[in-house]
């Protein structure tokens, strides 16, 4: 089987799915890659349904209970399948309308994280909503799945927010680290941003090597025929990036993600999470 480098749009039944579909369609068109929608249906054996509090057990009650519970599960699963299929089909139509030739769709059982890791091999770009079904009600800035999923994957991940605007100006948040340098090379080699002006922004604590690394990155991008605007602004990364995005009308951010261990970010906080919260635009995370 040939390895197809597809764009995988991971959706759940939330309103963010539409924007995931839009950005995935955009990316698929730019990279001329096949597009596939994935909806993961997870089971919840830890949640019980209790309408029977009679507490009486009689002849064959164990067998009857087993039959009843498995029938319940089967009925729920059928409903979920059908709901997901209709939902995915609508997104597929949407992608076709946006100009993608023949998007594929698939539903799978399992936990989100594990399913995505299984699919990773023939995926070139993941697209997922920064918030999802559960965040619709809880109003959190960052969906609870995002960090876990991103950490588990090793391919670029485009995390999208509400609304879709076709990216015109993109910015790379550059910290000079190995992940960021690799990221710059990936951007230079990819057709995804070809023809778009790229802002290269370095911030954070001023370091000796900073200007040299920034220059190096600029040359890499220019060698690939990109129009590059590079700037070095020392200071609080989170604030400066957010400010630059506003001032220069950036509509997509690119950065390396979660270079440090989960334990370290639990204690010191994660720069990736801070940036994801402060930058309210779609962000491409490089791993």
């Amino acid at each position: 089987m040939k390895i197809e480098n597809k764009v995988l749009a991971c959706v759940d039944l939330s309103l963010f799915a539409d924007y995931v579909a839009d950005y995935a369609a955009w990316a698929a068109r730019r990279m001329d890659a096949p597009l596939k929608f994935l909806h993961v249906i997870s089971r919840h054996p830890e949640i019980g349904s209790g309408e029977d509090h009679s507490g009486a057990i009689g002849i064959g009650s164990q067998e009857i209970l087993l039959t009843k519970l498995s029938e319940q599960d089967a009925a729920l699963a059928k409903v979920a399948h059908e709901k997901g299929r209709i939902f995915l089909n609508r997104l597929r139509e949407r992608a076709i309308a946006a100009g993608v030739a023949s998007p594929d769709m698939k539903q799978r059982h399992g936990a989100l994280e594990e399913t995505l890791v299984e699919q990773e091999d023939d995926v070139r770009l993941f697209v997922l909503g920064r918030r999802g079904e559960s965040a619709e009600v809880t109003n959190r800035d960052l969906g609870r799945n995002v960090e876990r999923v991103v950490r588990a994957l090793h391919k670029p991940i485009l995390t999208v927010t509400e609304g879709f605007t076709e990216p015109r100006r993109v910015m790379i948040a550059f910290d000079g680290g190995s992940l960021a340098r690799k990221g710059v090379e990936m951007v230079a080699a990819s057709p995804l941003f070809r023809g778009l002006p790229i802002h290269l922004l370095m911030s954070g604590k001023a370091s000796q090597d900073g200007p040299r690394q920034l220059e190096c990155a600029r040359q890499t991008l220019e060698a690939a025929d990109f129009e590059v605007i590079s700037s070095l602004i020392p200071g609080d990364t989170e604030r400066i990036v957010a400010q630059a995005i506003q001032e220069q009308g950036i509509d997509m951010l690119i950065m390396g993600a979660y270079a440090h261990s989960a334990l370290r970010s639990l204690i010191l906080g994660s720069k990736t999470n801070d940036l994801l919260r402060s930058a309210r635009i779609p962000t491409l995370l490089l791993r």
Partner: protein
Amino acid sequence: MKSLRQDWLSNIRNDLLAGIVVALALIPEAIAFSVIAGVDPKVGLYASFCIATVIAFTGGRPGMISAATGAMALLMVMLVKEHGLQYLLAATILTGVLQIAAGWLRLGSLMRFVGRAVVIGFVNALAILIFMAQLPELTGVTWVVYAMVIAGLGIIYLFPYITKAVPSPLVAIVVLTAVAMYFGMDIRTVGDMGQLPDSLPVFLLPDVPLNWETLKIIFPVSLTLAVVGLLESMMTASIVDDLTDSQSNKNRECVGQGIANIASGCVGGMAGCAMIGQSVINVKSGGRGRLSTLAAGVFLLLMVVFIGDWVSQIPMAALVAVMIMVSIGTFNWASICDLRSHPKSYSVVMLATVGVVVATHDLAQGVLVGVLLSGFFFAHKVGMIMYVGSKSENEGRIRSYQVVGQVFFASADRFVESFDFKEVIEKVRIDVSRAHFWDVTAVTALDKVVIKFRREGTEVEVIGLNEASATMVDRFAVHDKEGAEDLLMGH
């Protein structure tokens, strides 16, 4: 973190409600089992509270209910009668220690040797024992008691048709208690059975001399308790696994049961284990998480401590009705119909397990007999898969034997008998390359065949012995080498 939240907080409302239902059913059971063991009801009630609460944190199967059980109570009778309560508490703690050791040694995996027939036999025997334990309450009593038991069972099974919001065993107990008090009936009540808890449990080490004598008294009991407790817990865990379509951690459950029993012994409670009936009730009522087990334990204690005066007024007849319900619900009724359709060996193992348990009141002995019998039947069946064919070659000068199948202790005699030693022939060739020699008995049998032929003056050639005896993993230790499957299965 994720699993912690999932185990505890994903099903709060259902867990709490199911916990209350279970607690209400646990109270009569704990009292009834204390009566069986010959101790005050408070011993069983403290045990049920303590075991349920501790296992909520330490167990390996969320949603499973553990407390004082009939299977364990039956094993304590003699110890309590001859040595008293303090020795029971010491035995309970030792049981916990043994169970923790079993968990660390990963003995939970030994459950795979306990086949389906033995499990069904265990469950049926347990149900019969619970029922038989009610008989003392039903012999030599007035018709009033019978009427109350029947009325109780009627309420338990018919009330759910009216509403399923209230536990019907509770309704039965309340109604029967009210009737008995209103008419001032002269029948036995829970209060007559001994002391009920009047306070929260306090930490207290058993008052026994710490010496060799004590160990000799309690060790045999503790060992049986530990084995039976783990057996019932493992079986219940796999029942809950099936019902909820999820996995449990069996070795963690072993250690958890041990910790719970040690804790129970330290607050004046008896040993316990997982309960099949209560766990089914819990799942049926919507309980899935650890919270349901914790809630059951805490509600039980609160109810008993704060309405203890009312509890002592409950007529024993009401408890008997509840226990008969548990017995009916635990028994595997389908297994009676299966007797006709399942293989004879299966039925024999199942019935033997039941028979031994009912005769000895010891579930461990029943399981031992059941496991041994299944082993015999299995060996017998596999021993049938052995065939020796022969043909003469080289114009009648050579006879070539071809051995196919499994040669081991159960088939070795048949193997030897398959050769014709009386045949007058120059040379015999025995090809064993398509046979498996499983043990020393098989190799000895082959030696015997060779010697017998030689005595008749026949030359013997054995082909393929190395391949055949590769299955004697003990000696050649191929099981841990690469390509073991090919060696064992290939030829």
